């Protein structure tokens, strides 16, 4: 099992969610986050006082998937979140040691 963590542009969230549903992912967790990468921030001007805002708003998606659909899930996110412009975000994949469904106590793939 793998954990996919993707940082995407906020307005791409719906498309990504639909694409992930199509490959059979049953649940995701979404968080509003701020951060910086290669995309430059922007400047804000308040009565002449200029502030450089480095941190831009992004959406972080976390999804735990079975190894079998990992590649298709990554491809789905890539395709649906891409605009081709700087700031489209990143996808991180890491291993999951253990999964437990709290209600039933199921573990492993059955808990996903």
């Amino acid at each position: 099992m793998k954990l996919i963590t993707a940082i995407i542009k906020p307005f791409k969230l719906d498309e990504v969610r639909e694409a992930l549903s199509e490959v059979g992912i049953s649940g995701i967790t979404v968080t509003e986050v701020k951060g910086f990468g290669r995309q430059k921030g922007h400047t804000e001007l308040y009565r002449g006082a200029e502030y450089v805002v480095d941190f831009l708003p992004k959406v972080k998606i976390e999804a735990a998937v079975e190894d079998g659909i990992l590649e298709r899930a990554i491809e789905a996110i890539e395709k649906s979140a891409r605009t081709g412009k700087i700031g489209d975000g990143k996808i991180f994949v890491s291993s999951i040691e253990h999964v437990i469904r709290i209600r039933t106590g199921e573990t492993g793939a059955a808990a996903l």
Partner: protein
Amino acid sequence: MLTWIKQLMAGSAMAMAIGFTGITVTSVAYADDAKPAVTAPAVATTPAAPAAAAAPAPTPNKGDTAWMMVSTALVLLMTVPGLALFYGGLTRSKNVLSILMQCMVIFSVITVLWAIYGYSIAFTEGGAFFGGMDRLFLGGMTPDSNAATFSKGIVIPEYVFMAFQAVFATITCCLIIGSFAERAKFSAILLFMILWFTFSYLPIAHMVWFWPGPDDIKDAASLDAITAKAGWLWQKGILDFAGGTVVHINAAIAGLVGSFAIGKRLGYGKEAMKPHNLVYVMIGASLLWFGWFGFNAGSALEANGSAALAFVNTYLATAAAVIGWSLAEWISKGKPSMLGAASGCVAGLVAITPAAGFVGPMGALIIGVLAGIICLWGVTGLKKMLGSDDSLDVFGIHGVGGILGALLTGVFAAPSLGGTGIYDYVANAVAPEYSIVSQLWIQSQGVITTLIWSGVVSFIAFKLVDLMIGLRVNEEEEREGLDISSHSEEAYEI
């Protein structure tokens, strides 16, 4: 806290004793006291106008009275919540409640002081700088007491006049807090306000606005007699319809002195100190615009043509200022901002305040658009030159806008430029001659007097408060935010 108040009262009493020597404590000049039968104001007893005693008692018009009560409530709306939201939105989220709290409490403290001694010192006959003590604790005022207006034979209930003037005093004090927002100690602000209200607001209001009313002006001699009883700047002939000097310049210079006395915020110029909620700022500015109709049009003291002119000017100048600021910002900075439009709105309101009932609508448009452009410079270029952390730009908007408005009143009040000119109460008509140059000089004297008087009083008051209790919170409290450190509460829960 109680000891300070006692010391302060003792101090004020002493100052009054010094300031008011030679004042007769007989009666309020323009109001008949508790006895409706004795209608003619105090002036009636002077030899200059013996016939006045025979005149029938004027009774307040119900329309005037209703309008003035509504105006009073409109001005209240300007402070709570208008100004509080305008200022509150401009601070960081950790300090928004401190601003709302300061506005509401200062408003209340000044209201109480107004009833106890403020009204009497500002608006009863006394010297040229301070009024008298006839109305201490509103003594002698009854539902039958009347106050003069700007028309002969027309009066409004003195209770309404007193309340209308009270809300002016309160908003003026609340304006000041923007200059040292996010770092001043709550108790220090309250103590400063009591001192400043007593020794700057009251005398300036008396100097600019107090006169016994027009009813007893019959000829040149009686005009002189009445004028001699008026405030110092009134005697010079200053035109300040609704408070360019008394309210805006007075408060702005006090704020500026405060921003120097208290010092810059921690991290000023290094950390981002951007407004936390521009929606509040827009709501606040809009409530100010709405309430300002009471402030300016109400200053006519009657529901008449003068009020209508002030109403229209308040409407037009503000719109012109929003456009002026936004366009200037668009051209110079690349984009027009919501904060700019809201700031332009307030700048226009400030600038039209002294002019409201004296200039024509086209004069108002010019004053408005200039206020928008020049106050933008006030919060950028001038602010850099001054080098202080006037957090919410009180001087840049109220000081610059107030000075501009006070001076341009002298220009656009000219009948040749569409203004009303100056009313001659002897001829009972507008005076045919109007000299822009000499009126500008009178207006300048008003501006300079206010800047110096309020500046000096503020400096001394800040130093006194600093010695007694200290002006600012400690570093840790400032970093934590005043909402938690001064008031133990937070505006927003996540």
